[in-house]
């Protein structure tokens, strides 16, 4: 599996989130919470997780998705 740098993942997530909910990629920074800061609801999170899976080749199971609260959490999960 390809290794992705933190920067690469952050950029990719920014693109995905812009596509799905319209948030400016510059708003998507590691410390941001999806729900509280980026105003992303649970259905959009499902879409984002699937898109991230396609982009980075890492499956995010449903039971782990709910623990991924911040952008950094997703970066860590994908790099793990």
């Amino acid at each position, binding site marked *: 599996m390809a290794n992705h740098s933190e920067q690469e993942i952050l950029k990719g997530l920014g693109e995905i989130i*812009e*596509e*799905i*909910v*319209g948030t400016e990629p510059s708003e998507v920074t590691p410390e941001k919470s999806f729900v509280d800061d980026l105003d992303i609801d649970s*259905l*959009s999170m*499902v*879409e984002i997780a*699937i898109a991230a899976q396609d982009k980075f080749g890492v499956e995010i199971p449903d039971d782990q998705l709910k623990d991924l609260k911040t952008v950094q959490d997703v970066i860590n999960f994908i790099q793990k």
Partner: protein
Amino acid sequence: MSKTDVVVTGLGATTPLGGDVATTWSALLDGRSGISVLPEEWHEKLPVHFAGQIAQEPSEKLPRPRLRRLDRTQQFALIAAKEAWEDAGSPEVDPIRLGVVVSSGIGGILTILEQYDTFREKGWKRVSPFTVPMLMPNSPAAAISLEYTAQAGSHVPVSACASSAEAVANGVDMIRSGRADVVIAGGTEAAIHPLNIASFASMRALSTRNDDPQTASRPWDAGRDGFVMGEGAGILVLESAEHAAKRGARVYAHASGVGYTNDAYDIVQPDPEGAGQARAITQALVDADLGPDDIVHVNAHATSTPAGDVGETRAIRSALGDAADRVAVTSTKSMTGHLLGGAGAVESIASILALHDGRIPPTINIEELDSDVVVDIVRDKPRDMPTGDVAVINESFGFGGHNIALVFRRA
């Protein structure tokens, strides 16, 4: 107890003729056709190669992230609702006194079909998590309720091609019943897809005039061979006259009477005697406290099908009697095509603007009038409407035997 006077204070539409009411209305008066050729790759498998496709794509008006979680019916409805709401002066109204009655005849069928394709090709995980709230028939009404915080109640009468006329009727009734002061009412349809065209074509309901699509929708012409499918939405802001007066709103017309009946004759064929249609007209007139002599114009349902068009003219004559001689009848479907669940609302708007502007749009494409037509049809060019305190009727009928008549009276 006298009925609450309900008025129309806002209009919005997106149709095959234009992305708003003004563009649509001027095209109707000009007698322009909104029918266009379908994507080339569909032609091989279908006997019909044209439809009334929307003039302005929703992507020109709504941002991409918004579009991807809205069915096309919702997109049209939100665009038309925004226009209508702003046209009404963005009324200040208590959310618990604001209602929504917005229908679709078919519902979110494009979402169903597209997501089924995704499911078969890529599996369940790739199916959009918004599929359900997009495909629900109540999704346009729900989207509008959310957008305008309408908490009085949200309703979705489904009666095929009569759906949005029924929605307007229910909106009037909702205000009269005291449940709301303002109601956003109308309908939307977005069903242009090969399967749906195949489905209507297999009933032999569609025109197959592929060599001349813009003349295919020809209500009352002797050579008519079926309707032309269209897409789009129409939305009206209905308001109690008292509420409108208090805020000094501009009033287009009174929504004075509603009539609802059912043929209970056949699942798709109208009763050839038109008895149920005539009863709907009579009921709407009684409801409006008006008589046949008050009516100067009917915007007919007439879809360009062999059976329906002439039967409707018999129903008009039977309901209005000799007064029918002075009634100018038109079918704007000759230009828009048949917007199915969007038709009644868009045609209500045309009826109201005819009253408001004093001009009746023509029926185009009649080369030879069917000799069984028993009313006066406005052909080719718009006709001036009498001045003064007059009223018009908009009729809509749907598979399932539904007949709706709406009476609008000049303000």
